[in-house]
């Protein structure tokens, strides 16, 4: 446990050394959130769309933005670049489980991400006149599902990164992944608003567990058994992807070619 906590701490410290870089990233992210709020404010001035009124949409957008922020400070690029530049070689000579080690580094961003999310929530409350908050029961369900977002997003990023072992290129794979996740998680627009041919795949893919599930729990759209079912699906995806990643990793190692010295 200790070495993994050590990795997490080191990762946080590294992110903090790039404060300016992070700040610019967060300013970009905040701009996107403000833009979405403005667009939906205009769209909803005539009345609710797909069951979302302005107050609910505000909360939805905040949850969507928060779940998108989880894991973004560390950046999948770090993980991929270690494979390209050959540093994976030194990682492999350490007495650590490779997947847990990368997960720990990934979690190193949580501190800054939570700060950013808190700031965004405060800003919304201040400038748009309040925010819908769930009751204690729903809040607890939401908190659990929000925590599950971290390992879920990690495994998706980790599996994407392993594509590099075969493609020798990360940019394309990474963009494709980001686009798919954004669309099918509900981070772009609520899944209920998607046309049927997109809503179908969204329902069976793991990405809905990233945004749609926490949002449904936060807004009280899913309660009781339905809420527990959503959490179970989310947890099941974490386990399936975590162990699936292990299988892929074993095959990826055979394909690994470390370039240079």
């Amino acid at each position, binding site marked *: 446990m*200790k*070495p993994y*906590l*050590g*990795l997490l701490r*080191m990762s946080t*410290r*590294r992110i903090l*050394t*790039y404060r300016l870089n992070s700040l610019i990233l967060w300013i970009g992210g905040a701009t996107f959130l403000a833009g979405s709020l403005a667009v939906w404010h205009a769209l909803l001035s005539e009345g609710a769309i797909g069951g979302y009124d302005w107050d609910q949409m505000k909360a939805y957008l905040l949850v969507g933005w928060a779940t998108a922020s989880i894991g973004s400070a560390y950046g999948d690029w770090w993980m991929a670049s270690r494979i390209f*530049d*050959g*540093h*994976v*070689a*030194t990682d*492999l*000579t*350490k*007495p*650590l*489980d490779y997947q847990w080690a990368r997960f720990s580094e990934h979690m190193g961003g949580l501190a800054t991400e939570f700060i950013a999310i808190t700031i965004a929530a405060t800003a919304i409350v201040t400038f748009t006149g309040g925010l819908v908050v769930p009751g204690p029961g729903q809040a607890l369900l939401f908190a659990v599902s929000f925590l599950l977002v971290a390992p879920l997003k990690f495994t998706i990023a980790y599996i994407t990164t392993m594509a590099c072992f075969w493609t020798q290129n990360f940019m394309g794979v990474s963009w494709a992944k980001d686009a798919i996740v954004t669309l099918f998680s509900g981070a772009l627009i609520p899944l209920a608003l998607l046309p049927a041919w997109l809503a179908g795949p969204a329902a069976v893919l793991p990405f809905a567990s990233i945004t749609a599930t926490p949002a449904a729990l936060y807004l009280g759209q899913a309660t009781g058994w339905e809420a527990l079912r959503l959490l179970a699906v989310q947890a099941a995806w974490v386990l399936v992807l975590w162990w699936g990643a292990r299988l892929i990793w074993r095959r990826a*190692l*055979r394909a*690994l*070619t*470390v370039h*240079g*010295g």
Partner: protein
Amino acid sequence: MSLVEARGLTKIFRRPEKDPGLRGSLKHLVQRRFKEFRAVDGIELSIEAGESVAYVGPNGAGKSTTIKLLTGILVPTAGTVRVAGAEPHTDRMVNARNIGVLFGQRTQLWWDLPVRESLALLRDMYDLSPAFYKQRLERLDEVLGLADLLPVVARKLSLGQRMRADLAAALLHQPKIVYLDEPTIGLDISVKDRVRQFLRELREDGTTLMLTTHDLGDIEDVCERIVIIDEGRKIFDGPLAQMKDRFARVRRMHLQLAEPTPAEKLAERLPDVEVIAGDSPTEVTVTFDRFTHTAGQIIAGVLDVVEVGELHLDEPAIEDVVRKVYAGELLR
């Protein structure tokens, strides 16, 4: 069983076969062709505990690939590896505790953080006690001058400093076996000397050492055994002294003569031998083939002509020897 054992160790890489230019790249997209390339080809190697082995070969010979196979980073295409009884690429975690690895061309330090932080993380990784950690840092400070480097962010270290810090990182947990891949690459002479001195001490501590290099200066005084590979194949494996004996035919003797003597006069007395005048009229250098003449015969021949004051025999330079081995002149 030896500490490190490789049997028929082979690694084949697939290289994309692309025609040049954009056309070639596009063609490769639809019709992928690969050429197989044997980077390591049937290497047999046994290393006993406490041995120090120099693994030598020209660029691209397969040295780094061998190290990556022995350390469990790469999976062999064929053949087997055992290190302290474990198979490195399957028992990666077990193996990792036995070994220390340095890749001279890349660092394991956290680039954006002070060296001290990277070492503290390694302390946690290898579960070192605070007392042991402190003692190791002191020892590494003695031989590597580590203390000055601890507070410095790794990115700001010079190449030589970085190599010293990286050596410390590789050796912090006092591994049984140490693999060093080009530990002096790019270093200037004074830093090189310091690293070599450190390697000698490491050997005296009883650490098993495998060192790859294409700088043969790294080897003398550090390794008693040399393995030479070329194009993935082993072409010599034996004691350094034996290699010199077997392959170094040409020897050079410098003589200080009692009175000025022309080189030609000595050459007359010593046929088949090259005699060259030195900087002063009383100095000559005699170059002879060890297989046809002994040093004694040369001295006797010179003494027939003139008294000898001082004499000095050059050690055969391993550079020359290995160069010939590379050139294929001295295949067994």
